[in-house]
C-alpha cells in the first residue's frame, strides 16, 4: 500500500517536472527558430509615437548609484518637453536626497519627492504609489536606482503602447557587473535565459510575458483602474502582471529595450534576493491561481502559461520532495518505468536554475547574444539550482506560517548596491 502511494506521488511529481521541461524546451526552440524574423515591429509601425511619459525612480539609501542613473536620465534621447522624471527619496538615511536635489536644480524635468520617516520606508510599492498622483504622463515607466538604461530606451518602451490592448511593457535586463566574480557570471547566465529566451518566447507565442516592475512601464489609466501597486505583495511586479491580464490587457516584452543592472555579488545577497522573489511569487500564486482559472478574459493558452508561471517557484520544493520519495521507492520497487522517470529528475536538476531557465534556454540565449565563453559555465548552473532548493523551501514554509499567523511585512526588501558595475562582456 505504501509503495503504491509513493509511486502515485512520484509519478505525479514527474509529470509536473516533465511538463515544465517540455514548456521550456518549446520556448528555446521557438526563439531559436524565430531568431531570423524580427519581433512585432512596434518601432517602425509607431515611430512617431511619443506620448507624455513619467519615469519613477524609487530610492532608499542609494547614494552609491543614484547619481549614475540620474546622469543617464539627462542623456536620454526622448523629447524633454514630454518627459517627467520623479525620484522618490524614500526616507533615505544617506545622501540620496541631496544628490537627487542637485540634479533637480540643474534639470527642470527632474523632480524629487522626499518622503519622511513616518510615511517612508514601507516598501517599493508604497513609494511608487505615493508618486503616482505627482505624475503627469500618459505612460508611467519604472527604473530601479542601480539600473543603467540605453539612451533611446524610452522610445523603445513606449512604442508598444500605440496598441490600446497593451497595458504594460517590459524591457530586457542585462548584468552590468558580470566580470566581477562567479556569482555575477552565473546570475548573468540566468538573466540571459530568463529574458532573451523565456520572456521572448512568451511574447512570440502569445502567452504571458512577465512585467518585472523595473525597465518597463504601465499605461497610466490601467494603473489607476487597478488601484496602483499592491503594497502588501512581496513580488509586486508579478502581482501587477496578473492583475493587468485579469483586467483584459496584455504585457508586451521588447527585447531591444536593454537596461543594465548591478547583479548581486555574493551568495548571501543572492539568498536574500531570491528568498524575497520566491516568497513573493508564491504569495501571488495563492492570490491569483483561482482567478486565472476562472477568468473569462484569458485565452486557454494564457491560462495554462499563467498557471505554470505562478507555480514556477514551487518547482525546487517539488524536486526536493520527489527526490525524497525516490529513496524508499528505489529500495522497495525499483522497476523499469521508475528508471525512465528517474531521468526526468536528472534533467530537472539542470533545468530549474535561479530564474528557472533550464540549461538549454540559457545556452540558446547566450548563442543568440553572440556569447561564446559564457557557455562554458552552463554546467555550473546546477549549483545555483541546488542553492535555490533550500531558498524556495524556506520561503514556502515561512509563507505558510505567516499566512497562518496573519503577519504582514511592509518594508523595503533591499538588495545592497555598490555602484561597481562598469563592465560589459560581449563574448
Amino acid at each position, binding site marked *: 500500500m505504501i509503495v503504491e502511494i509513493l509511486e502515485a506521488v512520484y509519478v505525479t511529481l514527474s509529470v509536473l517536472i516533465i511538463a515544465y521541461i517540455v514548456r521550456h524546451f518549446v520556448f528555446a*526552440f521557438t526563439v531559436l527558430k524565430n531568431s531570423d524574423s524580427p519581433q512585432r515591429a512596434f518601432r517602425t509601425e509607431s515611430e512617431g509615437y511619443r506620448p507624455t511619459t513619467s519615469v519613477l525612480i524609487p530610492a532608499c539609501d542609494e547614494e552609491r548609484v543614484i547619481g549614475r542613473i540620474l546622469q543617464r536620465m539627462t542623456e536620454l534621447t526622448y523629447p524633454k518637453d514630454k518627459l517627467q522624471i520623479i525620484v522618490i527619496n524614500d526616507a533615505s538615511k544617506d545622501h540620496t536626497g541631496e544628490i537627487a536635489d542637485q540634479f533637480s536644480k540643474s534639470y527642470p524635468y527632474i523632480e524629487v519627492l522626499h518622503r519622511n520617516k513616518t510615511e517612508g520606508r514601507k516598501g517599493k510599492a508604497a513609494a511608487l504609489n505615493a508618486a503616482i498622483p505627482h505624475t503627469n504622463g500618459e505612460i508611467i515607466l519604472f527604473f530601479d536606482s542601480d539600473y*543603467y538604461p540605453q539612451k533611446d530606451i524610452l522610445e523603445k518602451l513606449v512604442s508598444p503602447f500605440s496598441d490600446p490592448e497593451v497595458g504594460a511593457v517590459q524591457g530586457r535586463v542585462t548584468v552590468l557587473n558580470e566580470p566581477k566574480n562567479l556569482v555575477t557570471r552565473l546570475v548573468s547566465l540566468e538573466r540571459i535565459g530568463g529574458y532573451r529566451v523565456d520572456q521572448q518566447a512568451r511574447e512570440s507565442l502569445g502567452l504571458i510575458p512577465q512585467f518585472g516592475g523595473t525597465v518597463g512601464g504601465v499605461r497610466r489609466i490601467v494603473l489607476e483602474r487597478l488601484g496602483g501597486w499592491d503594497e502588501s505583495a512581496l513580488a509586486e511586479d508579478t502581482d501587477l502582471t496578473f492583475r493587468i491580464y485579469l483586467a483584459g490587457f496584455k504585457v508586451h516584452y521588447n527585447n531591444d529595450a536593454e537596461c*543594465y543592472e548591478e547583479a548581486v555579488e555574493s551568495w548571501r545577497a543572492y539568498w536574500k534576493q531570491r528568498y524575497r522573489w520566491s516568497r513573493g511569487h508564491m504569495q501571488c500564486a495563492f492570490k491569483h491561481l483561482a482567478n486565472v482559472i476562472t477568468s473569462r478574459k484569458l485565452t486557454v493558452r494564457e491560462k495554462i502559461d499563467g498557471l505554470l508561471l505562478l507555480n514556477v517557484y514551487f518547482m525546487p520544493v517539488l524536486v526536493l520532495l520527489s527526490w525524497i520519495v525516490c529513496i524508499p521507492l528505489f529500495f522497495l520497487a525499483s522497476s523499469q518505468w521508475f528508471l525512465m522517470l528517474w531521468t526526468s529528475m536528472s534533467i530537472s536538476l539542470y533545468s530549474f536554475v535561479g530564474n528557472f531557465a533550464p540549461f538549454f534556454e540559457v545556452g540558446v540565449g547566450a548563442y543568440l547574444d553572440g556569447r561564446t565563453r559564457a557557455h562554458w559555465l*552552463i554546467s555550473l548552473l546546477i549549483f545555483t539550482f541546488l542553492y535555490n532548493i533550500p531558498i524556495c523551501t524556506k520561503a514556502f514554509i515561512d509563507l505558510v506560517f505567516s499566512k497562518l499567523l496573519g503577519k504582514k511585512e511592509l518594508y523595503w526588501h533591499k538588495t545592497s548596491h555598490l555602484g561597481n558595475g*562598469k563592465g*560589459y562582456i*560581449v563574448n
Partner: protein
Amino acid sequence: MDSEEKGRGDIADASANNSAANSQRRGSSWHMIPGFSAGMIASSVFLFGSLTSLESAAMLTIFNFLFVFLIFPLRGNLPLKLLTLLMGNVIGLAWNGLFSFSANVIAICMEPVFNTLYLILSPFLNLIWIVSYWSICLTIFSESKEWKEVD
C-alpha cells in the same frame, strides 16, 4: 568622467549591435532533417538494441533529441554537426558504460551505503556530460564578438 561616459556609450553601441549579430547567426532549419534521421537511428539502436541499460539508452535519447533540435538549426556546416552528434553519442556511451561499471564495482564492496549515495548523486552525474558537451558544441557554432571594456 568623459572616458567613463564614452565607455558607457559603448555599452549602448554593443547592445545596438546585438540585433545585427542575431541576423548574422541565421540558422539552417533544413539541417534538422538529416540530423533528426541520424538521431533517430542512434536512439533506436540504444533503445532497442542490447548495447546499454535502459537508463543509459534513455539518457542518450534525450541527448539526441536535445542536440538535433537545438544544435542543428544553428549556423554551421552539416558534416560538422553530424560529426559532433556522432562524437556525443560515443562520449555518452562511454560515460554511461564507465559510470555503470564503476557503480557495479563499488556496490559489491559497500552495498547499502553506496546504493543510497548512488541514488542521491546519479541525477547529477547522469546528465553532466550532456550539459557540458552540448555547451562546448554551442561554442563551436557560435560567432565570437570582441570584448568591450567600459572604462
